Every structure is written in structure tokens, then in C-alpha cells.
């Protein structure tokens, strides 16, 4: 096993996960290793059913692999997240993980501000006033100033996804996992979303992993992986460096 370089913060090592459908069992994730770096957005691509969501779930501590390890670096220490107790893992996710999914999954009854507040108040017990301030700041960064009071039904798809991003990023997570965050959006909204993730990864020094079908995202991310039939095809394809990004 190679010694990971300084910037690696999340490692999947020889991961295997099988699902049984009917009588026979099939490796949906078949000996996958992956290193993710801080301050980078990684794109995970592959055909439908290739195991992308499954890999994301394993890496984020939601689905236990049959074999292999997921190592996460927190404050310079390496932790094996699948050796933790469920309670420890929940607390690890609370400290470190943000999630974005295709379907927005916003509470229909709550305003944009409340969707963000609830994470701070319920997660970290941040007092109401401060939570509100931080939520408004985050909404401002996402270009949603003035829409703090809007409920999901009053927001466009792109705006809703930006609120969902705000919810994932408000606690400045060390790791952020996004499953098809752009696939319900038109290309220009999708571009805004991926650029916001890109900016956040640099600003918060976060490790962000995005699952998508969309090849157009390739030039907006730092690195991409291709999964096919549960196997990693080519490892870590660094994407063409854009001049505007300047960080590598």
C-alpha cells in the first residue's frame, strides 16, 4: 500500500461490496481503491448501474463494505470509519460530512433560511441568532440573497439545488458527497452548481466528490474517475487545468 501524499484526506482501499439479487451474489463494487485530495472536486463517472452511488455510500460511512477500508484524515489523524461504532460514525459524519442529492430533498414547509439553520441548530446546537446569521451569509454566497424567506415551492430547480448545497456546506464540512447534483437541472444551472462546489472546495479546503453522468462537468472539476461494472477503469485522470482555477 502506497503512502498517501500530504493532500490525501479520504482513501478507499480495496473496497468490495456485493448485493444479492435473487439467489446469486454479485460484486457491485469490485476491489476499488481511490484517493481523494483536500481542496479538490473529484468527479465519479460511469454508466448506470456501475456502482457509483454504492461507492459514494461506502466512502461516506452510510453503507458498510464487505471488505476493504475507508480511511479519513481528521486533524492529521487517520481514522478507519468502518471500524468505528455506529455512534462514533454518526458523530464523525456530524463533524465532517455534507450531502447533496439529485432530488433536493428540502422540507416543503421550511424557508430557505430554516433549511440551513436546522443543520446548525440540531447538529451543533448553534444558538438561533447565530445560526440565522450564518444561514443568511451562506445564502448570500450562493446568490440567494433576498430569498431567505422563500419556501421550496417558490424556488426554481436551480435555486432549490443551491439551497441544498448551502445545507451541505453550511457547517464547512471536511468532506462533501454529491450524487447527481446537476442531473435535474439545465446546463447553465448545472454549471452554477458545479462552480459553487468548486469554489467551496477551495475556500473551505474541502474534499468534494461528485457523481454524475454528465461529461460536460469534466472541465469544471479537478480530477475524474471512471467506474465500470464496479471496477475503477483509469485511475485519477487530472482534468485540464483551467487558467481561472489556479489551484492544484
Amino acid at each position, binding site marked *: 500500500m502506497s503512502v498517501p501524499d500530504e493532500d490525501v484526506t479520504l482513501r478507499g482501499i480495496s473496497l468490495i461490496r456485493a448485493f444479492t439479487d435473487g439467489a446469486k451474489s454479485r460484486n457491485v463494487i469490485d476491489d476499488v481503491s481511490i484517493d481523494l485530495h483536500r481542496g479538490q472536486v473529484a468527479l465519479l463517472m460511469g454508466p448506470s448501474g456501475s456502482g457509483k452511488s454504492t461507492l459514494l455510500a461506502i466512502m*461516506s460511512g452510510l453503507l458498510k463494505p464487505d471488505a476493504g477500508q475507508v480511511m479519513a484524515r481528521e486533524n492529521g489523524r487517520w481514522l478507519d470509519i468502518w471500524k468505528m461504532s455506529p455512534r462514533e460514525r454518526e458523530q464523525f459524519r456530524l463533524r465532517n460530512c455534507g450531502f447533496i442529492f439529485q*432530488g433536493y*430533498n428540502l422540507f416543503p*414547509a421550511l424557508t430557505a433560511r430554516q433549511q440551513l439553520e436546522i443543520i446548525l441548530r440540531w447538529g451543533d446546537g448553534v444558538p438561533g441568532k447565530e445560526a440565522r446569521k450564518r444561514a443568511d451569509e451562506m445564502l448570500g454566497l450562493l446568490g440567494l440573497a433576498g430569498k431567505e424567506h422563500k419556501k421550496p415551492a417558490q424556488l426554481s430547480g436551480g435555486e432549490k439545488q443551491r439551497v441544498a448545497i448551502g445545507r451541505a456546506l453550511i457547517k464547512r464540512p471536511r468532506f462533501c458527497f454529491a*450524487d447527481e447534483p446537476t442531473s435535474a437541472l439545465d446546463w447553465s444551472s448545472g454549471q452554477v452548481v458545479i462552480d459553487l462546489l468548486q469554489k467551496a472546495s477551495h475556500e473551505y479546503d474541502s474534499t468534494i466528490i461528485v457523481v454524475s453522468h454528465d461529461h460536460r462537468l469534466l472541465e469544471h472539476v479537478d480530477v475524474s474517475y471512471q467506474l465500470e461494472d464496479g471496477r475503477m477503469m483509469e485511475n485519477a485522470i487530472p482534468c485540464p487545468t483551467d487558467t481561472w482555477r489556479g489551484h492544484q
Partner: protein
Amino acid sequence: MNYSLSTLWHERPRYLPGIGAVAFSAVLIALQCGLLLGLFKITSIPVDHTRADVWIGSPEVLSVDLGRPIPMSQLSRVAGDPRVAVVEPYYQSFGSWIKPNGGSELCILIGCSLEDDSLGSITELTPELRAALTEPLSVVVDRAERKNLGVNIGDYAEINKQRVRIVGETSAGLKSLAGAYVFCSRPTAAQVLRGVMPKDHITYLLLKCHNPADAEVVAAEMNQEYKDSHDMTVMSSSQFSTRSRMHWLIKTKAGIALGYTALLGLLVGAVVTSQTLYAATVASAKEFAILLAMGIPRWRITSMVLVQSFWVGLFGVLLAYPCIHALAWLGTLVGVFIPLPWELLAMSGGITLVMALFSGLIALRSVRTIEPMSLLR
């Protein structure tokens, strides 16, 4: 918690069945208890609407309408008692009322002193009515029962084959469970009841104590003093009132009926409410799953569901109160008096609120099914 309240408001149609179910339970319980309370109240009217402090009746008398004759001679036993200020004989007995048209009804004949300071005459008997009753073989009935008794004022009817004249009516809605109250003087009562009561017998002795606050103590002491003769029971008026109501509650099994109805109402309420909360939680499962994925502990969601159940309960109870009063008012229109003391309203509200919280607990199994993995597909 304001998130619960926002959700409730935003998804009003979803929560409405739950709120309605809570209201239904509260209305059912309050009206049932109110009806019963009203019912039992009328069983003790002769005790509650008179001034006596202590009642002496036949041994182990179960209810005021079930007193058997006791010898008048017992009067002398208590008359000299230093604790007693006034003693007054009192007649009460079931009688058979024959309407002028020949039909018959059961009635309860009450014969009491007609003085202004009478212990046994109910407060509804005005001085004019009492004056009218001094006429031999005259009676007064309540307006609410006059139609059932088939008479107008001035008419003649028969009680136990004895012709009596109706000289007036009270207008207080004095109904009873078993038969219509018919009020008269003691001589009239003695005359009418001569066939059913042994000579020199009465039904009750009513006492006024020097100190009315001592009624309970006096009753207890007298019971003790006369316990060996086994020929009378001494009760304070409040004891006798309660005893009469409890007798009817038990004898009619109304209490059991009430219990079952209330239980059924609560059950229906709990099922609908918990189903409502369950469905609402399941509908938000993905949103909650995101929170779980981000490491927010499950108890936060649990408590949100419970807080929601509290609000559903509260709104249901608040909705119930106007309904209860409206239905009670409708009841008075058809002559059913439903007393609604605040204790009863508080109790029915409290019970249904607890039921709503309990429904919340049942609905919690929905929280257990929330799984962050369901989001990753």
C-alpha cells in the same frame, strides 16, 4: 418548536384528519360525561335543592328515591339532641299517577313542610306555590313533566287512586330518572300514601344542625350511636347526594357504558392521529434521511414528531371546545341539560391531549424506518 409548527401550518390538509380525530374524542368524552353528570344530578334533586344538613332514612338506603318508611317515633330520638336545631318529617314515595284521560305514569310524590324555613321544600317551590299547596289534596308538578302527566293547571288527576288537583307548576326543568316529581304538603302526602305507608311512618327525617359545617361529623356520630338498632341511616346531605348519584351510576351501568364509549372514542382518535403523524413523517422521510446522513441524531426527528403530536392534540382540543358548547346548547333545545363544569372540560381536554402524545409515540416507528441509504440510488 417552530419547525414543527411551520410544518403543521404548511401542510394543514395533511394534519387535519388528526386534529379532527382529537377533537372528536374530546367532544365525545366531554358530552358523554356531561350527559351522565346531568343525568345523575337529577337523581339527587330533592337533596341538592333543599336546606337540610342531615338526612335520616331507612337502613342502608341506596338512593334518595328508594327510601322506605321509617317510624315517626324516631323523631323523638333526635329531636332532643343538642347538636340538632330543627327536625322535620318528610315524605317521599313512588306513586301511580292516572292522567285525566286514563293513561298512567310513575311519579315520585314529595310531601314536605311548607313553611318559609322548611328544610324539605325545594327552592323552586315559591311562596305562592307553597301557599297554594296548603289546600288539601293539591299538588304542584314541573312544567317540563306536565305534558307527560297529561294535565293542565287546575285539572284533577289521581295518585294511588286518590284524586288530587294541580294547583301550579315549577319551571325549573325538574326531571327525574324514574318518575315525575310531584310536590305536595305533608297532610296531602299522608293521605295519598296511606295505602302504601304504615300508619305513623314517614320516609325521611331532615335535620338542621346548629353548626351546618358539622353535618358530616354529626351524621357519623349518630350512625355510631344508633348502629345497634339497625333501623336508620344518617347521612349529611352531600353524602346522600353522592350516594344517590353513585347508586344510579352503578345500577344503570351507565358508568361502564361511558367508559366503553370513551375508550372507543380514544381508540379511534389515537388510530387516526397516529396514522396522520405516521404518514406525515413518511412523506418527509427523504428530508429526514438527509439530516441523518449529516450525522444529526435520530432523537431530533423523534422529538419533532412528538412535538407535532402535541400541537395536533392542542389544536384538536381547541377545536373541540366550541363544538362541545354548541352541541350542549343544541341539547338544551331538545330539553337535555348537559352541565359542562370546567373540571370536566379540563379533564376531557387533558385525556385527549395525552392520547395525541401517545399517538405520537406510536407514530415513532416511522422514524425508525428512515434510512439515509435510501437517498443513494
